[in-house]
Protein backbone atom coordinates (compact mmCIF):
# COMPACT_ATOMS: atom_id res chain seq x y z
CA UNK A 1 0.00 0.00 0.00
CA UNK A 2 1.32 3.44 -0.93
CA UNK A 3 1.68 6.23 1.61
CA UNK A 4 -0.27 9.45 1.19
CA UNK A 5 2.96 11.26 0.22
CA UNK A 6 3.64 8.70 -2.51
CA UNK A 7 0.06 9.04 -3.77
CA UNK A 8 0.53 12.82 -3.83
CA UNK A 9 3.62 12.39 -6.04
CA UNK A 10 1.68 10.20 -8.51
CA UNK A 11 -1.24 12.63 -8.47
CA UNK A 12 1.12 15.50 -9.24
CA UNK A 13 2.59 13.55 -12.18
CA UNK A 14 -0.87 13.15 -13.69
CA UNK A 15 -1.78 16.79 -13.15
CA UNK A 16 1.46 18.29 -14.41
CA UNK A 17 2.96 15.81 -16.87
CA UNK A 18 -0.25 14.55 -18.48
CA UNK A 19 -2.37 17.70 -17.92
CA UNK A 20 -5.23 15.73 -16.42
CA UNK A 21 -7.74 18.37 -15.42
CA UNK A 22 -10.96 16.53 -14.58
CA UNK A 23 -11.75 14.77 -11.35
CA UNK A 24 -13.33 11.62 -12.84
CA UNK A 25 -10.34 10.99 -15.11
CA UNK A 26 -7.80 11.77 -12.40
CA UNK A 27 -9.40 9.40 -9.89
CA UNK A 28 -9.51 6.50 -12.33
CA UNK A 29 -6.00 6.96 -13.69
CA UNK A 30 -4.50 7.60 -10.26
CA UNK A 31 -5.87 4.28 -9.05
CA UNK A 32 -4.42 2.50 -12.09
CA UNK A 33 -1.07 4.29 -11.78
CA UNK A 34 -0.92 3.47 -8.06
CA UNK A 35 -1.85 -0.19 -8.65
CA UNK A 36 0.91 -0.56 -11.26
CA UNK A 37 3.41 1.13 -8.92
CA UNK A 38 2.41 -1.14 -6.03
CA UNK A 39 2.99 -4.18 -8.24
CA UNK A 40 6.46 -2.86 -9.11
CA UNK A 41 7.26 -2.37 -5.44
CA UNK A 42 6.08 -5.95 -4.74
CA UNK A 43 8.49 -7.13 -7.42
CA UNK A 44 11.36 -5.48 -5.52
CA UNK A 45 11.72 -2.09 -7.22
CA UNK A 46 12.05 1.16 -5.31
CA UNK A 47 9.09 3.58 -5.41
CA UNK A 48 10.87 5.81 -7.95
CA UNK A 49 11.70 2.91 -10.28
CA UNK A 50 8.29 1.31 -9.91
CA UNK A 51 6.47 4.57 -10.60
CA UNK A 52 8.66 5.28 -13.62
CA UNK A 53 7.88 1.85 -15.07
CA UNK A 54 4.19 2.36 -14.29
CA UNK A 55 4.22 5.76 -16.00
CA UNK A 56 5.64 4.24 -19.19
CA UNK A 57 3.17 1.36 -19.01
CA UNK A 58 0.29 3.85 -18.74
CA UNK A 59 1.40 5.51 -21.96
CA UNK A 60 3.46 8.43 -20.53
CA UNK A 61 2.24 12.04 -20.66
CA UNK A 62 0.82 12.13 -24.18
CA UNK A 63 -0.77 8.69 -24.03
CA UNK A 64 -2.47 9.46 -20.71
CA UNK A 65 -3.64 12.85 -21.89
CA UNK A 66 -5.12 11.15 -24.96
CA UNK A 67 -7.36 8.99 -22.70
CA UNK A 68 -8.81 12.20 -21.23
CA UNK A 69 -9.38 13.73 -24.67
CA UNK A 70 -11.17 10.64 -25.96
CA UNK A 71 -13.37 10.52 -22.87
CA UNK A 72 -14.28 14.17 -23.31
CA UNK A 73 -15.17 13.71 -26.99
CA UNK A 74 -17.29 10.68 -26.16
CA UNK A 75 -19.21 12.54 -23.45
CA UNK A 76 -19.73 15.56 -25.72
CA UNK A 77 -21.26 13.31 -28.35
CA UNK A 78 -23.36 11.51 -25.75
CA UNK A 79 -24.66 14.82 -24.40
CA UNK A 80 -25.77 15.95 -27.86
CA UNK A 81 -27.59 12.66 -28.39
CA UNK A 82 -29.32 12.92 -24.99
CA UNK A 83 -30.29 16.56 -25.50
CA UNK A 84 -31.79 15.75 -28.89
CA UNK A 85 -33.65 12.77 -27.39
CA UNK A 86 -35.24 15.09 -24.81
CA UNK A 87 -36.33 17.52 -27.55
CA UNK A 88 -37.84 14.65 -29.59
CA UNK A 89 -39.76 13.48 -26.52
CA UNK A 90 -41.64 16.82 -26.50
CA UNK A 91 -43.15 15.83 -29.84
CA UNK A 92 -44.32 12.37 -28.79
CA UNK A 93 -47.72 11.49 -27.50
CA UNK A 94 -48.98 12.61 -24.94
CA UNK A 95 -46.33 15.32 -24.28
CA UNK A 96 -47.07 16.83 -27.68
CA UNK A 97 -50.36 18.19 -26.26
CA UNK A 98 -48.45 20.33 -23.74
CA UNK A 99 -45.95 21.34 -26.45
CA UNK A 100 -48.76 22.46 -28.75
CA UNK A 101 -50.43 24.37 -25.92
CA UNK A 102 -47.14 26.14 -25.21
CA UNK A 103 -46.95 27.02 -28.93
CA UNK A 104 -50.47 28.47 -28.89
CA UNK A 105 -49.66 30.41 -25.72
CA UNK A 106 -46.53 31.83 -27.38
CA UNK A 107 -48.62 32.90 -30.40
CA UNK A 108 -51.25 34.60 -28.24
CA UNK A 109 -48.58 36.35 -26.17
CA UNK A 110 -46.69 37.47 -29.31
CA UNK A 111 -49.79 39.35 -30.48
CA UNK A 112 -50.30 41.10 -27.17
CA UNK A 113 -46.84 42.24 -26.03
CA UNK A 114 -44.78 45.04 -27.54
CA UNK A 115 -42.25 44.01 -30.24
CA UNK A 116 -39.41 44.95 -27.90
CA UNK A 117 -40.35 42.34 -25.27
CA UNK A 118 -40.06 39.25 -27.47
CA UNK A 119 -36.41 39.61 -28.50
CA UNK A 120 -35.51 40.32 -24.87
CA UNK A 121 -37.43 37.19 -23.81
CA UNK A 122 -35.72 35.24 -26.60
CA UNK A 123 -32.27 36.30 -25.42
CA UNK A 124 -33.10 35.67 -21.77
CA UNK A 125 -34.31 32.15 -22.58
CA UNK A 126 -31.30 31.40 -24.78
CA UNK A 127 -28.79 32.44 -22.14
CA UNK A 128 -30.70 31.07 -19.14
CA UNK A 129 -28.74 27.74 -19.14
CA UNK A 130 -25.59 29.61 -18.10
CA UNK A 131 -27.34 30.77 -14.93
CA UNK A 132 -27.64 27.15 -13.78
CA UNK A 133 -23.86 27.05 -13.42
CA UNK A 134 -23.60 30.21 -11.36
CA UNK A 135 -23.84 28.62 -7.86
CA UNK A 136 -21.14 26.07 -8.80
CA UNK A 137 -18.89 28.79 -10.19
CA UNK A 138 -19.25 30.85 -7.00
CA UNK A 139 -18.43 27.76 -4.92
CA UNK A 140 -15.40 27.02 -7.08
CA UNK A 141 -14.22 30.63 -6.83
CA UNK A 142 -14.58 30.46 -3.06
CA UNK A 143 -12.57 27.24 -2.81
CA UNK A 144 -9.82 28.26 -5.23
CA UNK A 145 -9.33 31.93 -4.53
CA UNK A 146 -10.49 32.41 -0.97
CA UNK A 147 -9.69 29.09 0.69
CA UNK A 148 -6.74 28.39 -1.64
CA UNK A 149 -7.82 24.79 -2.24
CA UNK A 150 -6.65 23.02 -5.36
CA UNK A 151 -9.88 22.01 -7.06
CA UNK A 152 -10.63 20.11 -10.23
CA UNK A 153 -13.61 20.48 -12.52
CA UNK A 154 -15.97 17.62 -13.15
CA UNK A 155 -15.74 16.47 -16.77
CA UNK A 156 -19.48 15.79 -16.88
CA UNK A 157 -20.18 19.35 -15.73
CA UNK A 158 -17.81 20.77 -18.33
CA UNK A 159 -19.48 18.79 -21.11
CA UNK A 160 -23.00 19.88 -20.06
CA UNK A 161 -21.74 23.47 -19.89
CA UNK A 162 -20.40 23.20 -23.45
CA UNK A 163 -23.87 22.08 -24.56
CA UNK A 164 -25.18 25.52 -23.51
CA UNK A 165 -23.35 27.05 -26.48
CA UNK A 166 -26.38 26.27 -28.66
CA UNK A 167 -28.09 29.22 -26.95
CA UNK A 168 -25.33 31.47 -28.37
CA UNK A 169 -25.92 30.05 -31.85
CA UNK A 170 -29.65 30.72 -31.53
CA UNK A 171 -29.03 34.36 -30.65
CA UNK A 172 -26.47 34.66 -33.41
CA UNK A 173 -28.81 33.27 -36.04
CA UNK A 174 -32.00 35.03 -34.91
CA UNK A 175 -30.81 38.38 -33.61
CA UNK A 176 -27.22 39.26 -34.50
CA UNK A 177 -26.90 38.05 -38.11
CA UNK A 178 -30.24 39.57 -39.29
CA UNK A 179 -29.42 42.86 -37.53
CA UNK A 180 -25.96 43.01 -39.16
CA UNK A 181 -27.40 42.08 -42.55
CA UNK A 182 -29.98 44.86 -42.14
CA UNK A 183 -27.30 47.43 -41.35
CA UNK A 184 -24.94 46.46 -44.18
CA UNK A 185 -27.33 45.62 -47.01
CA UNK A 186 -30.60 47.46 -46.42
CA UNK A 187 -29.62 50.54 -44.41
CA UNK A 188 -32.64 49.66 -42.36
CA UNK A 189 -31.98 47.17 -39.60
CA UNK A 190 -35.68 46.76 -38.90
CA UNK A 191 -36.32 45.26 -42.33
CA UNK A 192 -34.46 42.12 -41.31
CA UNK A 193 -35.27 42.28 -37.66
CA UNK A 194 -37.05 38.93 -37.49
CA UNK A 195 -39.32 39.89 -34.62
CA UNK A 196 -40.70 42.83 -36.64
CA UNK A 197 -41.96 40.72 -39.51
CA UNK A 198 -44.93 38.68 -38.44
CA UNK A 199 -46.58 37.66 -35.18
CA UNK A 200 -46.46 34.00 -36.23
CA UNK A 201 -42.72 34.14 -36.85
CA UNK A 202 -42.09 35.95 -33.55
CA UNK A 203 -44.13 33.31 -31.72
CA UNK A 204 -42.28 30.49 -33.49
CA UNK A 205 -38.88 31.93 -32.56
CA UNK A 206 -39.87 32.40 -28.93
CA UNK A 207 -41.25 28.87 -28.92
CA UNK A 208 -37.91 27.51 -30.18
CA UNK A 209 -36.07 29.36 -27.42
CA UNK A 210 -38.52 27.97 -24.83
CA UNK A 211 -38.05 24.47 -26.17
CA UNK A 212 -34.28 24.80 -26.06
CA UNK A 213 -34.24 26.14 -22.50
CA UNK A 214 -36.68 23.58 -21.10
CA UNK A 215 -34.86 20.67 -22.73
CA UNK A 216 -31.54 22.01 -21.47
CA UNK A 217 -32.83 22.30 -17.90
CA UNK A 218 -33.99 18.69 -18.13
CA UNK A 219 -30.58 17.60 -19.43
CA UNK A 220 -28.86 19.54 -16.65
CA UNK A 221 -31.05 17.86 -14.01
CA UNK A 222 -30.38 14.39 -15.44
CA UNK A 223 -26.63 14.89 -15.51
CA UNK A 224 -26.23 16.74 -12.23
CA UNK A 225 -27.64 13.74 -10.36
CA UNK A 226 -24.66 11.76 -11.69
CA UNK A 227 -22.24 14.13 -9.94
CA UNK A 228 -21.09 17.62 -10.79
CA UNK A 229 -19.32 18.68 -7.65
CA UNK A 230 -15.77 19.88 -8.11
CA UNK A 231 -13.42 18.41 -5.46
Amino acid sequence: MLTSDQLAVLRQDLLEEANISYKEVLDELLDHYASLTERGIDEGYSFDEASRKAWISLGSGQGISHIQERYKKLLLKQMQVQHWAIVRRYFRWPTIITTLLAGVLAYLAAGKVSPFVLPVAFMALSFFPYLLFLPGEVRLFWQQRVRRHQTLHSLRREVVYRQARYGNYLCLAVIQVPALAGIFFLNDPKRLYLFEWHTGLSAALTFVAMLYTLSYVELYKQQSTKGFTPV
Partner: protein
Amino acid sequence: MNTSSNSSLLKGSLSVMILRLLEDREKMYGYEITQKVKDLTAGEMTITEGALYPALHKLEADGLLTTETQIVDGRTRKYYSLTKTGHTEAAGRIAELAAFLENLNLVLKLKPSM
Protein backbone atom coordinates in the same frame (compact mmCIF):
# COMPACT_ATOMS: atom_id res chain seq x y z
CA MET B 1 2.68 -13.63 -29.59
CA ASN B 2 3.56 -10.44 -31.45
CA THR B 3 2.19 -7.51 -29.46
CA SER B 4 1.48 -5.15 -32.37
CA SER B 5 -0.51 -7.72 -34.36
CA ASN B 6 -2.16 -8.72 -31.10
CA SER B 7 -3.39 -5.19 -30.48
CA SER B 8 -4.96 -4.85 -33.92
CA LEU B 9 -6.74 -8.18 -33.45
CA LEU B 10 -7.84 -7.07 -29.99
CA LYS B 11 -9.42 -3.85 -31.24
CA GLY B 12 -12.68 -5.36 -32.42
CA SER B 13 -13.08 -7.84 -29.61
CA LEU B 14 -12.04 -5.79 -26.59
CA SER B 15 -15.54 -4.69 -25.64
CA VAL B 16 -16.78 -8.29 -25.85
CA MET B 17 -13.92 -9.40 -23.62
CA ILE B 18 -14.82 -6.75 -21.06
CA LEU B 19 -18.48 -7.77 -21.15
CA ARG B 20 -17.53 -11.43 -20.71
CA LEU B 21 -15.28 -10.72 -17.74
CA LEU B 22 -17.98 -8.64 -16.09
CA GLU B 23 -20.52 -11.37 -16.73
CA ASP B 24 -18.33 -13.61 -14.63
CA ARG B 25 -17.76 -11.16 -11.80
CA GLU B 26 -20.12 -8.73 -10.15
CA LYS B 27 -17.81 -5.72 -10.56
CA MET B 28 -14.25 -4.99 -11.66
CA TYR B 29 -11.97 -1.96 -11.90
CA GLY B 30 -9.66 -1.03 -14.78
CA TYR B 31 -6.39 -2.42 -13.45
CA GLU B 32 -8.12 -5.62 -12.36
CA ILE B 33 -9.42 -6.18 -15.92
CA THR B 34 -5.94 -5.83 -17.45
CA GLN B 35 -4.49 -8.26 -14.91
CA LYS B 36 -7.28 -10.77 -15.37
CA VAL B 37 -6.73 -10.86 -19.14
CA LYS B 38 -2.99 -11.22 -18.59
CA ASP B 39 -3.52 -14.08 -16.12
CA LEU B 40 -6.06 -15.91 -18.30
CA THR B 41 -3.77 -15.79 -21.32
CA ALA B 42 -0.58 -16.50 -19.35
CA GLY B 43 0.80 -13.10 -20.35
CA GLU B 44 0.25 -13.67 -24.09
CA MET B 45 -2.33 -10.94 -24.34
CA THR B 46 -2.04 -7.49 -22.77
CA ILE B 47 -4.61 -4.73 -22.84
CA THR B 48 -3.11 -1.26 -22.90
CA GLU B 49 -4.67 1.43 -20.75
CA GLY B 50 -5.04 3.60 -23.86
CA ALA B 51 -7.39 0.98 -25.32
CA LEU B 52 -9.08 -0.21 -22.13
CA TYR B 53 -10.42 3.07 -20.77
CA PRO B 54 -11.95 4.37 -24.02
CA ALA B 55 -13.66 0.97 -24.40
CA LEU B 56 -14.97 1.07 -20.82
CA HIS B 57 -16.17 4.66 -21.23
CA LYS B 58 -17.92 3.79 -24.49
CA LEU B 59 -19.72 0.83 -22.93
CA GLU B 60 -20.74 3.06 -20.03
CA ALA B 61 -22.00 5.76 -22.42
CA ASP B 62 -23.98 3.12 -24.32
CA GLY B 63 -25.70 2.16 -21.07
CA LEU B 64 -24.20 -1.35 -20.90
CA LEU B 65 -22.07 -0.62 -17.85
CA THR B 66 -22.74 1.23 -14.66
CA THR B 67 -20.15 2.54 -12.22
CA GLU B 68 -19.68 3.03 -8.52
CA THR B 69 -16.74 4.42 -6.59
CA GLN B 70 -15.16 3.28 -3.37
CA ILE B 71 -12.24 4.59 -1.36
CA VAL B 72 -9.57 1.88 -1.31
CA ASP B 73 -6.10 2.38 0.22
CA GLY B 74 -6.57 6.15 0.33
CA ARG B 75 -7.61 6.57 -3.30
CA THR B 76 -10.86 6.50 -5.24
CA ARG B 77 -11.50 3.28 -7.13
CA LYS B 78 -14.07 3.14 -9.91
CA TYR B 79 -15.84 -0.20 -10.29
CA TYR B 80 -17.67 -1.20 -13.45
CA SER B 81 -20.56 -3.64 -13.53
CA LEU B 82 -23.08 -4.77 -16.13
CA THR B 83 -26.48 -3.11 -16.33
CA LYS B 84 -29.60 -5.12 -17.16
CA THR B 85 -29.20 -4.16 -20.83
CA GLY B 86 -25.51 -4.98 -20.52
CA HIS B 87 -26.30 -8.55 -19.44
CA THR B 88 -28.57 -9.08 -22.43
CA GLU B 89 -26.18 -7.39 -24.85
CA ALA B 90 -23.21 -9.36 -23.46
CA ALA B 91 -24.88 -12.70 -24.20
CA GLY B 92 -25.65 -11.62 -27.78
CA ARG B 93 -22.22 -10.18 -28.51
CA ILE B 94 -20.38 -13.18 -27.02
CA ALA B 95 -22.42 -15.60 -29.11
CA GLU B 96 -21.79 -13.46 -32.19
CA LEU B 97 -18.01 -13.37 -31.63
CA ALA B 98 -17.89 -17.11 -30.87
CA ALA B 99 -19.71 -17.89 -34.13
CA PHE B 100 -17.35 -15.58 -36.01
CA LEU B 101 -14.27 -17.26 -34.49
CA GLU B 102 -15.67 -20.67 -35.35
CA ASN B 103 -16.09 -19.66 -38.98
CA LEU B 104 -12.68 -18.00 -39.02
CA ASN B 105 -11.19 -21.21 -37.69
CA LEU B 106 -12.78 -23.17 -40.52
CA VAL B 107 -11.16 -20.87 -43.05
CA LEU B 108 -7.78 -20.87 -41.30
CA LYS B 109 -7.73 -24.67 -41.15
CA LEU B 110 -8.46 -24.97 -44.83
CA LYS B 111 -6.46 -27.82 -46.30
CA PRO B 112 -4.63 -26.99 -49.54
CA SER B 113 -6.54 -28.37 -52.51
CA MET B 114 -4.80 -31.16 -54.37
